[in-house]
Structures are given as C-alpha cells and as structure tokens.
C-alpha cells in the first residue's frame, strides 16, 4: 500500500509523549559551564567603557577581542556584529559574554556599562536608512486609473508578533577536535555552520552543528540561532569547556527577532462593474536595527501585496527600513501576512464603497488559471482561488449567515489568499540544495539538513521515499540533522521542506531504484558495496525569474486559501471573541493528512492571535511586555473550533503534486476577523484588534 496520502505513524512521535525526547536544555556535558549575555540597556549610542562588578578571575569573560574570526553574523549582508563593537543600535544588543559553573551566580553577575547615548529612531517613516527597496511594475498605471469609475484608498497597519515557541532559544557549544560542535534548538543547521565558520575563522570541517529536538520555531529559530551559537562558541573556545546558553522567556522576548510591523497603503481603481483596473500599493516595513533577513521578508511581502487578484496595471513599491529596535526577522508567512492583511481588508472596503457583495467582488477579480500576476507569472492549471472561495462560502452558508448577523453584536467575514511555496525567484537556484539517500540492508536512510520542528519532516520525507522505492514506509530511516553527516538541503523555511526537498529526495529514490534493478537492497550491498545517491535541486525548465527587473515566475507554485471567521463583540468590554473559523486550503497534495491538517490548524490559531491578542508593546526601544503574563497568545479558551478543508490540485513539479503548506494558514485569519468586525459597521484597519482599538473604532464608526 502506498504511504503517501496515508496517516502513517509519525517517525518523530514516541519520545515526545513519554518525556524521553531530549531538547537542548535536557542535555549536559562533563565540565559544562553556563553562559550569559550582557546586553545594551539603551537603544542607540556609543559604549565608553564596561566594568564587571565581580572578581573576573573566577569567571570567563569574553568580548570583541576574543572573537577569533570576523565579528559578524554572516547572513545576507554582514552588517550585524556578534558583539557590539564600540556602539549599540538597539536595546538588548549583546556587549559582553560571561560563563560560570554556577548558574545562580551567573544570574546575579552585573557589568556596569557607561554609554554616550544618541538619538534613536523608532518611526519607520522617519528612518534615515533604507535596507532594501523593491519596485514591481506591470502595464501602465496611469492608463489603468483612467479607466476607473471609482478610486478607493486606504492605509493598513500591522504590529510586531512574537513567535513564542514554547522552548526558548538555546545551544550548547562543545570545543572538540580542534574546532567546535554546537548542539542546539534550531531550524537551519547550515545557516549556523556558515555563520560560525566566518565568526570563528575555522575551516568548515572543524565546525559541526547538530540540531537537538526543537520545541517550535515558526521562523524564530531560522537566523537567531547563528547569533546564540556564536556567543556560546566564543565562550567555549575561550574556556576550553562546553558552554550551555539557554534563554529564559524574558531574554528570549527582549532580544530575539519578531515579525516585521508594516504600514501598507492601497490606491485602487475600480470600473463601474467592480473590476479592478489599477493597483498602486506602497509597503513600508520596520526592519529593526540590522538588515538580517529583511530584504527577503520585504520581497515575499511585495510579491503577495496585490492579493490573489488579477489586474493589468499595477505598481507595488516596497521599502524596509532601519529603526533602533531589535532586528525583526523570520516568522511564518515572512512578509505575506502583513501585505495580505492590507489587501484583503482593502478588498472589503472596495466592496463597501461599491455597495457590492464581498464574495461577488472577489469572484469577479480573483486569479484564474492563465492569468498573470504582478510580476508577469502565468498561473498554471492548479490555480485554485475560485475553488477555495466557492468551498468556503458554501460550507459556511456565508450569504445567509451574513444576513442573519447583520445589525447584531456579531459579524462574519472572509479572506482570500495565496502563498508562494519555496524560496522567492532565483532563490532555489542559488541555494542549490542537495539531499542524499543511503541504501540500507532493508531499505534506505534519508540524509538531509532539513529539520523536524514539529511539522513532521521525517515522516513526510520517509513517505515520499518509501513510495518512490516501492518499499514499506517502516523500512525508511531518517538521519539526524547533523552537518557532519548530512548534505545541505537548504534551510527549513519558506514552505519548501515538502515541495522542494521532498522532490529532491523523490529523485534520489527513483535513481536508487533504477540502480538496484531487480536486486534487493541486501543483495546489492553484498555485490556492490555501499550506495549513496545524492541529487541537487533541479529548476523546472519553464521557470524564469529576474532579480533585476522583478519579472517572471516569483514562485514555483502557490497554495490557495480562503478563511471565514465569525466573531462576537462584547458590548461592554469591546473584546472580540472568535466563534468559529473555517479554513479551506488548496495544497496540491496532503502527503500525510493529519500532519497537513495540524499545520493548518496551528497556523490558523497563530493567525487568530495575530488578529486580536498579540500586541508587542515597545517603550523606549524595548519590548515592555516581554513575558507570557502580558504578551497573550491563544489558549484553549481563546481558540474557536477550526474547521479545516483540504483541497488538492496537483503542482506538476511537486512530489505527488504537493505544494507548500507551513506558512499559508497564518495569512488568512487576521483579515477574515477584521472583515467580520467591519461587518458590524466598525471601521477597523489595524491589528491586533485589541479591545481598546475596537472601542475607539466603534465609537467613531457610524
């Protein structure tokens, strides 16, 4: 029986339910010290001096001079130092590192830092520095607007969001074999590897990165672990002993990355029949103090900014800028939830301006197979915007519910969205990911750097390989994500682990099957010795992309989604309570339906938090609510029943037709919920929709 499409037993399940699974803080090494970080308490300025308020002879204290290589976190541009060198650009910027055998002593260690403060910038609109600017142009905007009967304009804002994986960031660095081995909670072992080679000035073979069981990532363990691994490695090399650094919740929230806040402006020309004839969109994102991943976040943001709607005359202009706040970074959705929020709330405002049914307006404008996106990409037969909308509307009885709730303290709203799978544009070509498959006496072992962070990577990869080899799923093993023994299959991000890495593995398995011929694995090994098949990403021939002009096929494939949210408003407290949420997602193929549903349910819940609960409050450049008591994420009582519908429309280059799934579910809930609030006559254009904002908007709305 084929494994794909079946709910086979997860490869990574057992230890998680018995407590046997070892997360990084569960590990210990002989002679291990604990490390901590002295951080900036000001947002911007020069460091005059640092003075430890303890006897340094009993401690390991490391600063910039102890960095063996280059003082940078190598990522896109090497602009972020591992330790501040004379000046700081944000609160919580690392300045000095301490290590000690006694964790309690460490917690009490104080270092006096004397600063010469400078004036910080918090307002992205007033930022003196643009990290990245992108312009997408299609057709002739002036001509488009000349055909418009109405022009609808609006500005939409989204706030920071904290990933809030329940396991905080943590690593252990162990000096060994003339180099360093890092064990850590992380998504991308090869990102950490690349950063450590530069930081420590070591040859690549002296750096080893091993992923430990990882208690959630959501993007928050994409780039930040390179920083933390760098700190622990500097201390470990200086001490000559293993060093463990595990953040507590406050430090994790203060210092690590969050979702980029955004301000998106739309100006849309609409013909009298409701067709969109011109789209002018301006996207501004707050990148924080260093560039980190911001250019790529902006890229995904602008590439999704039109929403899933066709229009011949489009301009999308995006900028991501510097502010004196901790760098913002990867978080599930990666720029798209921000711009899709704006697009879908704006769509609702167009329907209000035209007094046109919101479903009808979307039906009229949505992408259909053969339509072209803003970058000129021609959408394939798997384009499913119409299908997901139809299914969501039918399943929820949307029209009738909308009428029934009109004029009450409840509302219903929807959002239509799409999400590109895999790296943007030429990204996959540049990554040139590799995956390997090793023959075992009974089957095969998968060797990839892709990590299991809860989503079931090992299981779905094993399913794909088992079916391609024609062997039972149980006979496929999966290696640990350890850079000493697996190839670089690229980062575990961007909804690419199934569609892109899964496809490379499928190719490995097909090649292995051909080489086996009629021989059993055991017989082959006996006759020919070990067999390892390694394959690299192969770009589908028809995909073309130009980073210079931003024209072409931005993504290999898109998933399609429609959410319907029903909410109630408390008439006294203005609290918004989601009553139910329907999530229809077209994902190509559900390799493991339960895991796929889990991605949709979990992403939807995070999207509900983004919509109404999760507010990062900044005061003087620092997160003022950096603890779980007052940064509130959805509990069982905040999360409504989530009704998931999976549709499948195969992508020809995905394994079994599969597209990406991890990120898309978080795109839809915020606009659907805000549109449901709008259904109550409340003119809200900003998230999170806290009681204060809903009250304010309710009081000025007619």
């Amino acid at each position, binding site marked *: 029986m084929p494994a794909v499409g079946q709910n086979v037993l997860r490869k990574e399940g057992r230890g998680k*339910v*018995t407590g046997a699974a070892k997360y990084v803080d569960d590990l210990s090494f002989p002679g291990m010290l604990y490390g901590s970080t002295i951080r900036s308490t000001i947002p911007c300025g020069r460091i005059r001096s640092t003075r430890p308020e303890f006897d340094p002879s009993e401690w390991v204290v490391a600063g910039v001079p102890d960095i063996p290589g280059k003082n940078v976190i190598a990522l896109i541009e090497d602009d972020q130092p591992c330790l501040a060198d004379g000046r700081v650009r944000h609160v919580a910027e690392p300045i000095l590192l301490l290590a000690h055998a006694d964790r309690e002593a460490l917690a009490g260690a104080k270092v006096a830092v004397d600063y010469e403060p400078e004036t910080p910038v918090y307002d992205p609109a007033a930022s003196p520095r643009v990290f990245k600017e992108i312009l997408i142009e299609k057709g002739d905007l002036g001509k488009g607007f000349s055909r418009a009967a109405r022009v609808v304009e609006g500005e939409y804002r989204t706030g920071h969001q904290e990933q809030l994986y329940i396991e905080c960031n943590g690593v252990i660095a162990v000096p060994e074999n003339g180099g360093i081995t890092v064990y850590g909670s992380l998504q991308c072992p090869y990102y950490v590897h690349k950063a450590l080679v530069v930081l420590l000035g070591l040859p690549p073979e002296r750096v080893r990165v091993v992923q430990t069981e990882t208690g959630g990532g959501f993007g928050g363990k994409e780039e930040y672990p390179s920083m933390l691994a760098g700190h622990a490695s500097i201390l470990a090399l200086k001490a000559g002993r293993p060093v463990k650094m595990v953040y507590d919740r406050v430090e994790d929230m203060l210092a690590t990355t969050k979702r980029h806040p955004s301000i998106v402006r739309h100006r849309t020309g609409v013909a009298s029949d409701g067709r969109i004839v011109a789209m002018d969109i301006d996207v501004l994102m707050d990148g924080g103090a260093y560039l980190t991943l911001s250019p790529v976040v902006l890229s995904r943001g602008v590439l999704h900014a039109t929403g899933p709607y066709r229009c011949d005359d489009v301009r999308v202009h995006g900028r991501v800028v510097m502010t004196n706040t901790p760098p913002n970074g990867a978080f599930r959705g990666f720029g798209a939830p921000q711009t899709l929020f704006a697009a879908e709330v704006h769509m609702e405002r167009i329907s209000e301006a035209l007094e046109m049914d919101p479903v009808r307006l979307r039906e009229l404008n949505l992408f259909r197979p053969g339509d072209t996106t803003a970058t000129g990409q021609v959408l394939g037969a798997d384009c499913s915007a119409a299908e997901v909308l139809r299914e969501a509307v039918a399943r929820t009885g949307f029209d009738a519910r909308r009428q029934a709730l009109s004029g009450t303290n409840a509302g219903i709203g929807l959002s239509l969205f799409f999400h590109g799978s895999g790296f943007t544009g030429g990204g996959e070509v540049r990554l040139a990911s590799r995956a390997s498959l090793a023959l075992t006496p009974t089957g095969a072992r998968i060797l990839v750097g892709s990590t299991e962070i809860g989503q079931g990577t090992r299981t779905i990869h094993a399913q794909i390989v088992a079916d391609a080899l024609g062997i039972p799923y149980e006979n496929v093993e999966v290696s640990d994500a350890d850079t000493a023994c697996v190839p670089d299959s690229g980062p575990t991000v961007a909804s690419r682990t199934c569609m892109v890495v899964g496809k490379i593995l499928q190719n490995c398995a097909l090649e292995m099957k051909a080489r086996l011929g009629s021989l059993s694995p055991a017989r082959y090994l006996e006759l020919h010795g070990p067999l390892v098949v390694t394959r690299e990403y192969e770009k589908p021939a028809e995909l073309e992309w130009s980073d210079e002009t931003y024209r072409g096929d931005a993504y290999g494939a898109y998933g399609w989604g429609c959410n319907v949210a029903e909410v109630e408003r408390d008439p006294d407290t203005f609290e918004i309570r989601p009553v139910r949420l329907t999530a229809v997602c077209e994902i190509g193929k559900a390799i493991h339906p*339960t895991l796929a549903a889990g991605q949709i*349910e979990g992403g939807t819940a995070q999207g509900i938090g983004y919509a109404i609960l999760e507010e990062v409050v900044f005061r003087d450049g620092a997160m003022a609510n950096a603890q779980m008591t007052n940064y509130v994420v959805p*509990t069982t009582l905040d999360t409504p029943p989530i009704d998931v519908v999976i549709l499948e429309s195969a992508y020809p280059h995905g394994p079994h037709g599969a597209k990406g799934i991890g990120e898309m579910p978080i795109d839809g809930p915020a606009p659907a919920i805000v549109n449901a609030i709008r259904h109550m006559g409340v003119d809200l254009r900003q998230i999170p929709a806290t009681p204060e904002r809903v009250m304010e908007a309710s009081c000025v709305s007619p």
Partner: protein
Amino acid sequence: MKRLLDVLREDCALTGTKEGCGEGECGACTVLIDGQAVNSCLVPFAQVAGSSVTTIEGLTGAEALQSAFIREGGAQCGICTPGMILAAVALPKDADLQDIRRGLAGNICRCTGYEGIYRSLRAAAIPARAAD
C-alpha cells in the same frame, strides 16, 4: 529555595518536565501533585514534602492517550506535550469539550491550535466523554 521544577530536572534527572516561561503561564512544567495538575515552576520544593509527585516519566495507565497524541496530531514539536498529557489525565472523568477547554486553559500549545489535542483525547476516550 529551589523550585520543584529544578529539583525534578537537575537533581532527579527527570527532564521530561519542561520550562516554558518560569512564571506559571504556559503549563509546560505541569506535574501531578497528589493527582492535581500543578505548575512545578511555582512550587518551592519543600512544599511537596509528604506528597506524591508524578511526572511524565512516572505516568502509568495513560498509554492509550500517549499513543493518541502521536496518531491524532496532539503533539507537534512536543515541548508542551508532557505537561499537556498530565493536565489531561487530571481532568474530571465526565468532562465535556467545554470542561476540557477550561481544564487545559493553563497549558499553552503554540503548534496545534488545540484541535489535534481534542482529537487525541476523544480517540483515547480519556476522559470517557471527551469532546462529545
């Protein structure tokens, strides 16, 4: 004085009990004290003198529920799972879905949206009327 959580993890080497927030908000450190689900990060260890403390390692009779957490998507990253399972075991036997939601409200899962957890409880029939 040490927290019960630290004594369990460091002195008893029972690392199945996890720390998520250290302030009693997330429930990852849930253990059973005389059958009651308690956040072990909030308990000075001397308070449990004479009590029975059950961690995920010592849990017996919940095999069906633990298996269901794997099969039904109750566990994704797994960091909240030991605490979630112990909190679920402590639910009243006649709990309905609303009771379950109330009973698990102190255990935060960032991965599942809780649907997989409800499915797991229902599949294991623990409590017997789970999620009716």
